[in-house]
Each structure stands twice: as C-alpha cells, then as structure tokens.
C-alpha cells in the first residue's frame, strides 16, 4: 500500500467501529448515575421545603410585629386624645 492509498482509504468518521462497554457494566454505570440524580432531587426538594418554611415563619413574625406596633400606636393616640380632650 502506498501513502496515497492510505489517504484515499483513510478511516473516515464512522468507518472505525464503535465499541460498547459490557452490558452489565453499562447498566451499572447508568444505575449509579440515576442513584446520584435521585439523591440530588431529594436534596433539592428538602432545600426547597426548608426555604418555604423559613418564609412562612418570617411572614408570621412580621405579622405579629406589625400587629404589636399598630396596637401600640393606637394606644398612644387614644391616650393623647384623652390628655388633650379629643
């Protein structure tokens, strides 16, 4: 074979065979990756739930503070009214 033959018959894309890993091994890899993805889904769900819980508590705290402040302000105004005779 000459060098020209080689270039003429050069192994074009797809000409070289593609190999597969052993089926059992390929499945094992798939299963390991699926397991990691499932663990990630769980972590993400737990994180989302934790984030949801935090905002609910935060909203409750803000609400309680707002009610307390509002009540205090109303009481101040009521007493001011009594003092000045409104």
């Amino acid at each position, binding site marked *: *074979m*000459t*060098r020209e033959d*080689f*270039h003429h*018959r*050069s*192994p*074009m*894309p*797809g*000409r*070289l*065979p*593609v*190999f*597969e*890993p*052993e089926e059992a*091994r*390929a499945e*094992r*890899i*798939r299963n*390991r*990756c*699926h397991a*990691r*993805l*499932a663990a*990630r*889904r769980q972590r*993400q769900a737990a994180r989302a739930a934790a984030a949801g819980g935090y905002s609910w508590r935060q909203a409750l705290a803000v609400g309680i503070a707002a009610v307390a402040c509002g009540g205090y302000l109303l009481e101040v105004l009521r007493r001011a009214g009594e003092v000045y005779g409104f």
Partner: protein
Amino acid sequence: MDREAEFELVRRMAGGDASAFDAIYDEYRARLYSFLVRLSRRREVAEDLLEETWLRLVEHAGRIKPGTPLGPWLYTVARNLYYSYCRSHGIGDAGEAGLMGLWQAVAQGPSPFEQACSTEWEALIEAALARLAPHYREVLQLTLVEEMTPGEIARVAGLPPETIRQRLVRARSLLARSLERATGRKRALRMQEATR
C-alpha cells in the same frame, strides 16, 4: 443533537432528571468508551474511566455554562482521567498493544458484506493506531471519529491549535507508515505461502 438541545438536557439533568441523563448517556456512551478503550488499550481500565467520567458529569452538570459543547467537555474529562490514572499508576505508554479482543464488541458497523471487505483493513488500522503514542492516538481519534476541528481538540487537550495541527500531521504520517509496513509484511507472507 444540537448544542441547545444538549444544554437543555444538561439543565434538566442538573435538576435530577434521569431521562435527560439517559438521552445523553445513550448518545455518548459508546463513542466515549471507544475513545477510552483506544487510548488506554485496556478494557477494564476504559470501563472504570468511563464510569468516573459519567459520575463527574452528574456531579458537575449544574456548573456547565450555557453554550459549552458537551462532547468536548466529556472528552476533556475522560482524557484528564486517563492521564491522571497513568500518573497515579506510574504507567508510561511502553509496549506493543494487543487488540484486546476489540472486535467482539462492535456495536455499530457496516453490513456483513462491507464488514467482510473492510475488517482486515480496519484491523490493520486499529493495530497501527494502537502502536502510536497516546497523544497521537487521541488527536487521530478525535479528528477521524469525532470529526472535531483542531481548535476543538486544542480545547480538549489544553494546548494551542497549532500544536494540535502539527501533531495531527505527524500522527497521520506515522499511521500511514505503520500501515505501509503492516501491509508490506502481509503481502510478503502471502507471497511466501503462495510459493510453498
């Protein structure tokens, strides 16, 4: 698969979608394994490195930036894992390669007729490829099998494109010379048999 579709799959996978992983796995598994098995020339090593490459993808999927081509990303990881493996095991690239019974595991190939015509030629190419140094093997594979440009290979190998171009020219020439020698030997053997 175009780059946007690939990135969409990566994004879904980062969210834990196993079907997105399967689509990527089915697309790249055999190609990546072929790359690793030709690079390492050892089936078990190639399978271990393949597994590690996929686990890395699952782990880092969320950090892959939009527009990153997935193929070169996977080959970069696989290649780096192979060289790390060589370093940690003190493996050089000495020694003649056997073909490791690669031919029993062909997943996709030509029709039986084409196979009959081309098997000998392909076996010669495989043997010649296996005799090359790994840095020549990888550029040839990425060019001839994956159709990557020197620029893309340069990104995979972390080298300037000019270096890759030079390697490619050298690798082609070495492969051609090796094939010339191999076919010359075969012809001589056939002539010997014929004259007996």
